[in-house]
């Protein structure tokens, strides 16, 4: 999945520090100001229903007759959720978009595991087709790589539904990197919004093929949907390319504007990009940063 050179490149990278992880389970290498279940005491607050009873400071209760809980400084363990679209449209393109998605997911997984972050992967088409919950440790890399390797493109795109389904199954926060082409007529913003609602922080990585950005059409041809070959073909020629490209840009811009409004990372990469260019794009979008 990753070559030695690519691994060496990834060793110098880390996930972007602007992301706020929801839950941490072990010591990682990330220091944050976020209050969490860590060792170092930070502050007291009044007990609220639902708080862990073990965090009640009974000394204060005995003295002040008030239930207070101890707030400790979190040690910044990120829970990284890799959501990879494996619908049939991801098989389109030359090179196909799923290869690029898999490469990127693998890179993010490697970085997270090396930083002792928990990382999990889920594949989806019209629903979640496979789910490997986030976990830390090197064995998780291999489990994730195996999941990614075994995945094959198929099914129709229902991104919002798949994201909603996934958000409903996870607990706690984390960074949810959604890697897809985001080709859904009804849009995928509802799914992203639900991720936010469920405490996940989406990062949007749209992967498109070069021929999807710049279609090479001179004569009249019939276009067939890869996910629904039985659907009526659309007749296209050189005169319809401009309208398509405008629609394409409008769709991507809508996604980008949503992410910008919600302070989310968003980037669009081409499936023909080299590994270096892919990482550079992630760094530019704030998804990755140089480790230091």
């Amino acid at each position, binding site marked *: 999945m990753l070559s030695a050179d690519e691994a060496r490149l990834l060793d110098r990278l880390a996930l972007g520090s602007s992301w706020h992880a929801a839950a941490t389970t072990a010591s990682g290498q990330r220091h944050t100001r976020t209050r969490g279940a860590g060792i170092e005491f930070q502050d007291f607050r009044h007990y609220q229903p639902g708080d862990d009873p073990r965090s009640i400071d009974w000394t204060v209760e005995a003295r002040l007759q008030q239930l207070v809980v101890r707030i400790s400084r979190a040690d910044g363990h990120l829970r990284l959720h890799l959501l990879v679209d494996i619908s049939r449209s991801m098989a389109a393109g030359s090179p196909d978009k799923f290869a690029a998605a898999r490469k990127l997911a693998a890179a993010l997984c490697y970085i997270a595991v090396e930083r002792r972050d928990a990382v999990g992967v889920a594949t989806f088409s019209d629903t979640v087709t496979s789910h490997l919950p986030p976990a830390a440790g090197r064995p998780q890399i291999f489990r994730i790589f195996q999941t990614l390797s075994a995945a094959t493109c198929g099914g129709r795109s229902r991104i919002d539904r798949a994201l909603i389904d996934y958000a409903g199954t996870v607990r706690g926060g984390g960074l949810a990197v959604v890697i897809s082409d985001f080709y859904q007529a009804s849009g995928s913003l509802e799914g992203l919004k639900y991720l936010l609602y469920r405490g996940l922080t989406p990062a949007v990585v749209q992967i498109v*093929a070069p021929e999807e950005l710049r279609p090479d059409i001179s*004569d*009249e041809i019939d276009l067939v*949907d890869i996910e629904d070959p039985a659907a009526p073909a659309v007749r296209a020629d050189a*005169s319809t390319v401009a309208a*398509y490209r405008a629609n394409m840009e409008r769709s991507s811009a809508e996604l980008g504007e949503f992410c910008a409004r919600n302070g989310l990372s968003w980037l669009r990469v081409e499936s023909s990009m080299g590994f270096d260019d892919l990482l550079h794009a992630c760094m530019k979008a704030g998804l990755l940063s140089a480790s230091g």
Partner: protein
Amino acid sequence: MDLINPGALWFLVLVAALLLLARSRARPRRTVANLYLWAPPEAADSFQLTLRRLRRHWLLILQAAFMVAVIAALARPVFSPHSRTAVLLVDVSSSMAAREGGTTRIDLARREAQSVLDRLPSSTRVRLMTADAATTDLGEFAAGDAALARALNDIVVTAAAADLPHSVRSARIAGGRSAEIFIVSDHAVALDSEEGVRWLIAGRPAENRAITVLAARRLPARPDDGVVLATIRNYGGAAVDSAVEIIQNGRTLGRQPVRIAARSSTTVHVEVAGIGGTIGARLTDSDALGADDERFTLVDDPAPVRVGVVGTSSFFLEQALATNRSVSVTALGGAALLPDQFDVVVCSGCDVPPANAAATLLIAAPAAFAAAAPLSVSQPAHRLASALDVAGVGGAAAPAAALPPGAEVVLRAGPLPALVAYEQQGRRVADLRMSVDAAGLPLSTAFPVLIDNVIGWLSARGERVTEVLAGNPLRWTLAQGEAGASVSVLGPDGTPREATINGRQLTVASTSQPGVYRIIGTTVGRGFVVNPVTDGESDLSLTPPAPARPPGGVDTERSGTAADITSPLLAIAFGVLVMEWQARHRAAGRL
């Protein structure tokens, strides 16, 4: 616009096949990740949709346009700003038979005519007409019709002269106001109007000689012998030595050499013993036009006029008749008059012509004559008054009586008719209403002249034309009783010629061929000759060298009138091909 080669339009089937193939051709299919982004924008209106459709099929449209342009060029379209009817008027007068190298002017004329026909749109209606003494309409054809070419080849030259201005007027009437008239001739003449007229000149100036006059007369002293006079004209620019053969009834009597100076005439006199029948003259050397190298004439019939006298003859009348050597007089006395017994019957003391009489001289015998009065000629142009001098001569006329219908008073004695001429029941009657015994006219020198005129008019001797120019009709008055006869006319080649009889009027109109014609079935004559027209036809130097402008500013050209737009169509096709190539490369992004 018309098509010279309409059959090329069948290639349009290929254009239809191209369109069908394009329509049925399976468009390439491509699998894409989504279709919703490919939905076309809503068209503003049907015009936008049409434009989009045209843009989509622009290459196919250009390819079809290229094929259509090439096919249209193959069809050879011609655009003629002029009418779609034309008249081809071919001069078939005598001069068109002139030799031009190894061909003749009429052959050159046919080639000129055919070249014009080849340039006309095949659907043009062409009326073919010939011009000689008359204008003959040979029918209307399509320009590309093979029958027109055959009719053109079947045109025969005559020995007549052409009246081209008259023929052009006939052509305008036949072809219509908008018809274009093509005149094929060896010379152009001034017309009333040159509008719509195109001259096609065939032939070049040439040297020529012709026998222009041939006459034969019996010698008065020796009627059995005669003299032949032949005039030969040299129309050329150099003197010529030639010879004239004199022929009688097909037998050559002799040959007389002649030398004719340039542009001048020479007359030959030849005495012929035992002259009679048909006399011909022929030039022995050949020149450009052979039709005018021969000429014929008929010698007068020496037989006397048979005159029968009925009733009591007058001394003076007998003397007057006796002095005429061309008359044989027979007194019938009381014998019955038989039909056709005499050419002229003199009926003394008759008021009406006797039965069985042909032409009759009535000599009045009234109970009393009016007082003598000076004679005067009332009809000087009448043959009865020919050379008649009655000045100072008096005569006693019969009392006035009703004149028959159509009667002409030739001579008057004072106010009274003295000599009346008329025709009654197909026979001529001269009514001499004067006394032939009293002093006055009978004693004058005018009386025998008058009697000679009367006999000549009644017998119609010399009145029958025996020589006509080619193209002119022959008209004879048949003898009484021959009105319903079957008269046949044989041409010089022995073939029958059409002859029409209207009452006693015999007309032979088919005289285009020169030579001796025989008439069978009438007693008024045995035949006549047709001679070629030399005036205006034998002078072959009149033909201007092409492309000189004939007198009158006539516009002469040898080209067609329709504009062939094949080349512009081919240029358009090439332009469309370039556009298609550019559009294809632009679409492929290689420009």
